[in-house]
């Protein structure tokens, strides 16, 4: 239901496909703080848009949220404080980088589990193959010697 409302809201935001740039007058005075704020914009979702961060959206609410983040940074909050603040207000939906919890363990873990178990399988296989590639056994050497010394019989094939 909430999603439906969002989709409807997004449908009305007709000016969505344009660049989102703030008036430089809105920027934080401290360049370091501004660049921290701008990298945070990329992690925070615009609540009325279809899958856009507040860095990309030109919607009014995205502008308000950018100013909110700037305000927090200016007040001396750390990046993690800002994320926590956003999470407390809006929940998981707001963060484009999902928090690592029990519910997102599969999301974060599955690709790496695949890589690690694949590498593990390769290593296990290696142990199985190696004997075949190694030295010949005494009986095999004898068989080889017999084959090498025996005269070839054209009719035997």
């Amino acid at each position: 239901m909430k999603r439906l409302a969002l989709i409807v809201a997004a449908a009305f935001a007709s000016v969505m496909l344009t660049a989102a740039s703030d008036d430089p007058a809105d920027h934080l005075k401290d360049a370091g703080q501004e660049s921290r704020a701008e990298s945070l914009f990329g992690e925070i979702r615009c609540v009325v848009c279809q899958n856009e961060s507040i860095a990309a959206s030109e919607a009014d609410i995205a502008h308000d949220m950018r100013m909110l983040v700037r305000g927090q940074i200016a007040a001396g909050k750390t990046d993690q404080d800002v994320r926590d603040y956003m999470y407390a207000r809006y929940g998981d939906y707001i963060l484009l980088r999902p928090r690592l919890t029990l519910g997102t363990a599969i999301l974060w873990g599955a690709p790496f589990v695949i890589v690690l178990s694949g590498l593990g399988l390769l290593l296990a296989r290696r142990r199985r193959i190696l004997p075949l590639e190694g030295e010949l056994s005494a009986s095999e050497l004898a068989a080889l010697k017999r084959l090498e010394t025996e005269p070839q019989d054209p009719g035997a094939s």
Partner: protein
Amino acid sequence: MIAELGTFAFALAFALSLAQVVLSITARIRGSAMLRGAGEGAAGAAFLAILLAFACLLASFIRSDFSVSNVAEHSHTAKPLLYKIAGSWGSHEGSMALWCLALTAFGAVVALTGRNLPWRLKTMTVATQGWLGALFIGYTLFASNPFMRIADAPVEGASLNPVLQDPALAFHPPMLYLGYVGFSVVFSFAVAALIEGKVDAAWARWVRPWTLAAWSFLTVGITLGSFWAYYELGWGGWWFWDSVENASFMPWLIGTALLHSAIVTEKRGAMQGWTVFLALCSFTFAMLGTFMVRSGAIMSVHAFAVDPKRGIILLSIMALASGAGFTLFAWRAPKFSGGGLYAPVSRETTLLLNNLFLAAATVAVLFGTLYPMIFEAVTSKPISVGPPYFDLVFGVIMALALVILPAGPLIAWKRGDAAGALKRLALAGGLALAAAAAGYAFVSPKRALAAIGCGIGIWLIAGSLTELAERARLGRTAIAESLRRLGGLPRGAWGMTLAHIGMGVFVLGACVELGGKVEATKVMVPGDTFQAGIYSLKLDSVGPIDGPNYLAERAAITASLNGKPICAADPERRTYPESHTTTSEVSICYRGLTHLYIVLGERREGNDGVPRWLVTAYVNPWAWLIFLGPVLMALGGVTSLSDRRLRLGVGRKAVSPKIESTPEVEPKPKAKARAKKAPAT
């Protein structure tokens, strides 16, 4: 009348596809050559029928026949001809018609060529292709007919979404669909092989050209889409990890894995089950992509023809087609034997690692794309998975894949020499480390990941060139001899090198752009200037423009470097009255490989009553490489495709007398080597 003819042709194609299935299966059971020919003929006829239907759709759009509801909803008399044509595949119904056209076209090519295929395999392939055709044509005919009439035809159409009115996007869907649907042939081959119970080197060789073709189309299609997003959306970015982008990217990743695993199956008879599995996956992901884009199940910034009800039907079709394939796989695949043995250090192992990393990367993209939907269904709480997740998880896994890439071609089949390969790659490795160090030291602010990426890009390019130099024995023999060796390399080798270099070029471009990007914004009145990186921009004027189907404000901006004007930019902000939409027309100054990307933002009335404009400029260093890289990759695919050994009619062509003009790989040395060995044994 034209629209009715179109519907009729679609119905005819549906019947023909069903006939194709029935005739081919009967032919396979009875062993009848006549029925087999009839099945193949039905495949050709189904294509002709869809071609006729599609021509009818085009005609309806070109003639602006607004009594056809699809035309009325997606076209307009004031639209330029190109976009009237592009409008025919801009809607859900039209895009499915295009999908059917590509599907039957490939089906016809399989049926009417490839005479050297074993008849059982071919007949079952044609039957499977007919089954896929019947599913999708049936869907289009019964649930999404593009020829529906409306009782009261409007005088004017509703127009195509204006951001879609762009040349890159006019050709983006056809390319993408040719790629998606190209994998249908691979899928059909896999199903046929499972039914016949035989996957061998010959099978892999028949599948490879189709995979290459589909992969090349998909590469071009994705690149066009990305380039379109880059200059049309006006965000200054080119990839957003949006679900629609991911939908097209997953089949590409699987296709890339399949290209490599099919080589192992062809050359060494190994990894048969896995190759068949990937072949089934490739088209499944292509269908999943279409389902995701067309159903609206997943929120996206750029899905333009969405209909949830039909999504359910599309999902059912997907389940029906893929479900049958994977069930067959579970039943038959355990039969396949393992193939040749190989040592831990061997070409086989490197390709296996390639597949492992690509599979894990695909899972990352798949999970990231679908997780919000699944999470919400289970917990009824919404969650977002965005670019930071993909950048991290996908980035790490792909970096691993790219680091081992240059070693692969330098390591021999069966048992390779790791130390030797690394020694030969020392120069490339040194260059890569130097590039990464330089990237980290000289670019500010410091971005470690971008610097590592630059190193990987150089590593790929230099590593691929090293392999080429090795093959030519450059430096170890006379230049003329090296050139002769290069000339004698099979096209497949050139294709591989081109594609790998293209990958490196792309990675280099993406990382330089990421690390060195400069953004500057200013609210301006005409006459103002501002600085973007090393460039100085002056807003000369802003004037109104009366377009064919839009109104616009166009700015005249002069970009200068060291006081000398270098470029006149004219970004626009367009308003389309028919659809009440505003879009931004970016203006890009091309400075060698670097883009100076200028966007005209909204108009703001100042306190003094003088209008002001928000102007944003991005300096995107080496941005051309981002799009040039994939073009090189696609060229590599086409080059490999032109290799004589990979052509479909290879059996017939091998005996044609023209062979002398294209010499085979070093035939003389091989013959000599054999001659030398002979007396010794």
